[in-house]
């Protein structure tokens, strides 16, 4: 209990000083705004539906991109994991794509798909596929060989083998990769919106900044922070602490 209270001290202090400072005229309103205005702007954004809509649009792109990455990553990961030959031959070509920062592909996806959901989901998918792929390959390689022999002995077809033996055996580790991918999906979606895609919370913040509505911008920023934190907390609760104190940033 004491730790929760201590942890709350800093945020409360910051907001209190922020409010006091702007009311006293020490902090310029056009850059800093003030907490009370931010809360009002948030309430207004919620009631007129703009913030829920923007949230949904961002979440949608993140989800679609994540789903694509999950399916592709697991499928390719399983195949590469099961076949050392394929991993050696095809693997390096795939790996050559990994160092490309996903955001650099934004203009390309814009070229291919134009503005909207598809381009954003495509960039998210590219960014998210790597943690899933890497983890899946490692997980599949680590499956007890006996289990694979059992699958062979039972003469299971590939889809059945996948469903009944491979995936359940590798699931634990794959889930870790999926977790990282989920966190990345939100980050990348917002980034694409800020840089060029006119939809979602990222775009909402840019618009608010450009139309001199700093309170609305901060409201969306803090809301985004809360979403990210909430998502992380949910994932931690469901799947345990991720062993990276440095956070699910870019997969190393």
């Amino acid at each position: 209990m004491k730790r929760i209270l201590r942890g709350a001290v800093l945020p409360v202090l910051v907001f209190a000083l922020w409010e006091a400072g702007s009311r006293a005229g020490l902090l310029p309103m056009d850059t800093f705004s003030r907490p009370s205005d931010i809360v009002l702007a948030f309430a207004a954004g919620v009631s007129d539906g703009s913030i829920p809509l923007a949230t949904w649009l961002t979440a949608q792109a993140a989800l679609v991109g994540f789903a694509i990455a999950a399916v592709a990553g697991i499928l390719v990961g399983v195949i590469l994991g099961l076949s050392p030959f394929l991993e050696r031959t095809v693997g390096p070509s795939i790996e050559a794509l990994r160092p490309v920062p996903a955001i650099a592909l934004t203009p390309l996806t814009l070229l291919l798909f134009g503005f909207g959901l598809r381009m954003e989901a495509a960039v998210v998918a590219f960014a998210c596929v790597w943690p899933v792929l890497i983890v899946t390959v490692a997980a599949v390689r680590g499956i007890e060989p006996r289990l694979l022999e059992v699958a062979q002995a039972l003469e299971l077809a590939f889809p059945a083998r996948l469903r009944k033996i491979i995936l359940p055996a590798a699931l634990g580790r794959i889930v870790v990769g999926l977790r990282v991918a989920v966190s990345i999906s939100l980050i990348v979606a917002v980034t694409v919106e800020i840089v060029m895609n006119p939809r979602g919370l990222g775009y909402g913040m840019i618009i608010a900044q450009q139309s001199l509505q700093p309170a609305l911008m901060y409201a969306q920023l803090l809301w985004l922070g809360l979403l990210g934190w909430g998502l992380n907390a949910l994932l931690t609760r469901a799947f345990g602490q991720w062993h990276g104190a440095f956070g699910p940033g870019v997969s190393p």
Partner: protein
Amino acid sequence: MKRLPWLGAALFAAGLLVLWQVLADRQFISQVFFPSPSRTLSELYRQLASGQLWKPLEATAFRMFYGWALASLAGVVLGAAIGFSRTARDYLEPTLEFMRPLPASAVIPAAILFFGLSNSMTVAVIAFGAVWPVLLASVHGFASVERQLMEVAAALRLSRAQLFLKIAAPSALPDILAGARVSLAIALILAVVTEMQASQTGLGQNILLAQRSFRSPELYAGVVTLGIMGFAINQAIVVLERRLLRWRGSHE
């Protein structure tokens, strides 16, 4: 007959490129969206030969390293201070946990508000984004210095400076380096993002301009360049890690 291990991979990659080339030349795929490898490569060569590549490459690299260096310094220093003190961690950790999943690019609108579309904006955003992995890694590293080593330090009566330099810092180094690696990747991404946003000279802007004028070989060349850059810096850190953490390989 001994088979070279990389031959299969090289053949496969070459095969893919040849296929792409043929499809593009025969107009089976649109050269607007998927320029043939030969055009991309010749564009890349042209940029290199004419020296056109260096300025944007330098600009992006400098921005990235500068922001990353600031972030790393701040991260290690703050990480040490926080990591060592249980009370500091109690007060600060919740706030740090909140900041961790926040997309660094989300602060771009706020940064534009404060700094305009300037160099300070880019450095601020890059440093802000890059600080979290290295900060959190440092906190973890300094907080988990082996307790018995602290007792050894007490028994030898090491001064605080000696304790930090000879025991705490080397102990935290593996964590710090891992965090720095992630930080650098984030710095690259943010450098590209901020360039695109603020229309500043750099590889990111090159790609954006190429997209706007539908010059796809230039676009692809830019992506390839960024990919190579990402790969090179990751390898550099891996090499650094291997040198500095030589002693780890010997742990049984």
